[in-house]
């Protein structure tokens, strides 16, 4: 049971090639190809229709994108200004703290001094 292929000029096995061509034969009917070309062009037509429908929206989309970019820049500027103001307030708070602290200390120290005076008065001879 030996395999003796008939090898063609390009190294092809002629019988195998013939069998493969039979299996993979394209449709022979011209009507089929006309129909396929029609379907391809119809799909292109559909594609173009979608494209046309999208065109005005695409213009809006461009405008929308520009508006979004402007809004983003504005928001960023506002945020950075806000952050600067908050930083300034924080610095002001730190800077203003020493002037109010002594007052508070003086206020806190006042009852202590009165108590001391009373004690001094009581224990004094």
């Amino acid at each position, binding site marked *: *049971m*030996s*395999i*003796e*292929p008939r090898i063609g000029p390009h190294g*092809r*096995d002629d*019988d*195998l*090639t*013939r*069998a*493969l*061509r*039979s*299996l*993979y*034969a*394209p*449709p*022979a009917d011209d009507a089929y*190809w006309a129909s*396929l*070309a029609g*379907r*391809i*062009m119809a*799909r*292109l*037509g559909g*594609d173009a229709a979608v494209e046309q429908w999208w065109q005005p929206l695409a213009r809006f989309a461009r405008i929308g994108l520009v508006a979004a970019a402007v809004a983003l820049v504005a928001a960023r500027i506002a945020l950075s200004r806000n952050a600067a103001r908050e930083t300034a307030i924080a610095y002001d708070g730190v800077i203003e703290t020493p002037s109010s602290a002594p007052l508070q200390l003086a206020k806190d120290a006042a009852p202590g001094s009165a108590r001391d005076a009373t004690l001094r008065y009581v224990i004094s001879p």
Partner: protein
Amino acid sequence: MYAALSLHTAQHVPEPSTDWSARTRERDLIVAAQHGDRDAFAELVTLHQRRAYAVARAITATHEDAEDAVQEGFLHAYRALDRFRPEQAFGAWLHRIVANAALDIGRRRRVRDADTLSDSVALPFRDPAEQDELRRRLAAGLEELSQRQRSVIVLHDVEGFTHGEIGSMLGIPEGTARSDLHHARAALRRTLGDLWSQR
């Protein structure tokens, strides 16, 4: 059996004419299509669809998938037409696109039908010859091959593409295409061996 088979034997799909006037005409059509002339593109479709189908059919498992790949391929080609340079070979460019569409359809189908094992080699049309022993054995033999080996042997032996063209279409080195062809032929000869010895 081979006498009967020869009745069904089809010649491989010829390339669109490559003479000078035909190429000039094709280039004119491409330029016109690039400028939005849809009739020009329709003519390109008519010129190239058979060969495009042959490429797709070599890669896909069924006639229906090949049809889808051809349609997808032309659609992609139309969208990418402005990137095509007219001095290129339109056929080779289109075949790469169609092959890519066919490979993509094959991948999607394998994922979708992973449980039902659809990677079988369906015949283009259901006709009485489908019952033919050789066809049955050949289909079974092709099923044993990897998808790439099957594509390579069909593109080379049936459609007459060179190893370089096949490598370019399938995205594999030329040497791999050559080796796939060798293995595919050997495997099919083994499958059909006893039928061969009967003649």
